[in-house]
């Protein structure tokens, strides 16, 4: 059942964050990501982490389920960290393995990269946890409206996005169904070597592709039958509206970026200079 799928899924509780306008959430997310890449010092990372944790707390999504999203990227984090340890040589040398040096600068740089990746995923996960796919595409479409002036088919892009998002759970469910049917006929998907496992995927993939094409055909017909695109300017049933809380959230986002720039430039904490030279 697709119900068991938790990665990046909408988490239905009521909270300040859930109720925010998706456009504001997108803007704050962008600001957040810019912040993640802007920070230079450990105190900066503390600001970013605090922002992420605070948002999670306000959103009432259990921190554990947000942390679960890290499972998928743990390999990438370790991989980039290890690479960066070796590629950055600066400062005191800790170890030498052949020609490879592990230096103070390298270790700090690797740590920073790992932290950046983790914070990045945590923030974006919170966005998908607190915003329904429909709200996401609506917000994105509204934010991209200016692009229609340069003839970019924003509405079509939004429709494509919402259809693909809508079909992820459906296809996941389909995969589960097909897997069960083939298992009932004695198929095994978690046994044997790499080649055997790859071969075992065929009985899932072929029916899945066929059904995806069938669904696409049916959907195209359904869109046609309801005169999709017959009128150039569609009106909306649910209009996005900014509220007071969106303004508050906007201020929080602004405060966040200001704080990061301030910390980066050591505006008011002169003691920062002594602590870690490379962070």
């Amino acid at each position, binding site marked *: 059942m697709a*119900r068991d799928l*938790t990665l990046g899924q909408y988490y239905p*509780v009521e909270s300040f964050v859930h109720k925010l306008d998706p456009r504001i959430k997108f803007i704050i997310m962008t600001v957040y990501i810019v912040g993640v890449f802007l920070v230079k010092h450990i105190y900066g990372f503390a600001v970013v982490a605090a922002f992420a944790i605070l948002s999670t707390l306000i959103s009432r999504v259990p921190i554990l*389920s947000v942390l679960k999203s890290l499972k998928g990227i743990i390999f990438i984090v370790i991989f980039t960290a290890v690479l960066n340890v070796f590629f950055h040589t600066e400062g005191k040398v800790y170890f030498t393995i052949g020609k490879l040096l592990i230096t103070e600068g390298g270790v700090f740089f690797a740590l920073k990269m790992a932290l950046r990746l983790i914070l990045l995923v945590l923030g974006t996960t919170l966005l998908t946890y607190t915003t329904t796919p429909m709200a996401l595409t609506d917000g994105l479409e509204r934010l991209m409206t200016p692009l229609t002036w340069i003839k970019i088919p924003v509405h079509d892009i939004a429709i494509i996005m919402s259809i693909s998002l809508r079909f992820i759970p459906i296809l996941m469910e389909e995969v589960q169904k097909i897997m069960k*049917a083939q298992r*009932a*006929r*004695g198929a095994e998907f978690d046994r044997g070597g790499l080649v055997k496992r790859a071969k075992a995927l065929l*009985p899932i993939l072929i029916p899945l592709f066929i059904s995806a094409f069938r669904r696409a055909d049916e959907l195209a017909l359904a869109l046609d039958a309801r005169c999709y695109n017959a009128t150039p300017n569609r009106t909306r049933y649910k209009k996005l509206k900014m509220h007071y809380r969106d303004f508050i959230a906007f201020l929080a986002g602004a405060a966040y970026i200001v704080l990061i720039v301030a910390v980066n430039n050591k505006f008011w904490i002169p003691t920062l200079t002594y602590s870690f030279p490379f962070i």
Partner: protein
Amino acid sequence: MSIKVKNLSYVYSPKTPYEHKALEGITFTIEEGETVGIIGSTGSGKSTLVQHFNALIKLQEGELMVNGFDLAAKKINYKALRRDIGMLFQYPEYQLFEDTVAKDVAFGPKNFGFKKEEIDFLVKEALTLVGLDYDEVKDKSPFELSGGEKRRVAIAGVIASRPKVLVLDEPTAGLDPVGKREILELIHNLKNTYVKTVIMISHNMDEIAEFTDRVIVLNERYLIHSTTPEKLFSDQNSLNGTGLRYPHVVRIQNLLKEKGVDIELEKMTVDSLIDEIENKILK
């Protein structure tokens, strides 16, 4: 050899906001040789229940013995279990994937470790049993066939492994009336010759009334009846609150009774109903 279910409960996505109780405190026994229908409205837990039988769904709570396999045990011989319990899913034609019909039917037996010569024999036998011409269809792509033929191939793919129990999840869904009839008769024949026990989920009460010895009724995750179709459908209150309707023959019988024509049905089939009405009129 039978299926014994005791106090079985199942919860989807436990401890998340999507938590959903699918089955609660289910207890019943199916003896070898029975044809059992499982009915209930959408979401009553029918599919979840039958998928326990071949361990596609892991037992969470309760006891379950299937053909001598204890499904509460830590180690289960899944292959042996799934060979014994053949399962046909809803719209089984969507699981076909090989480039020829014969290869697709051979998928099950091959996985269950039958020998090459045995497989050839089993495939031929299964395809013939479901009413297809082996020589004509064996090299065809399953995707060239008609809907009804595809479903037959899918059924052949299940019975080719010689299961002892056949579990069918809405085997007639989406077929035209003639196709439905043919599939049901096919299942009936298989029951008499090939498999020992048949368990069938259906939304069609006429099918249930005509083809099963016993009916299990699920309503919102609870088992509310386990009795013969005659007893179940002759009780006017048995299906209250389930959203299920009585078979057409029973409804006609009840309408006639309201008008003062009292008939007894020998069997719950249209033929039996017509006979009884003729008897009444001609008398």
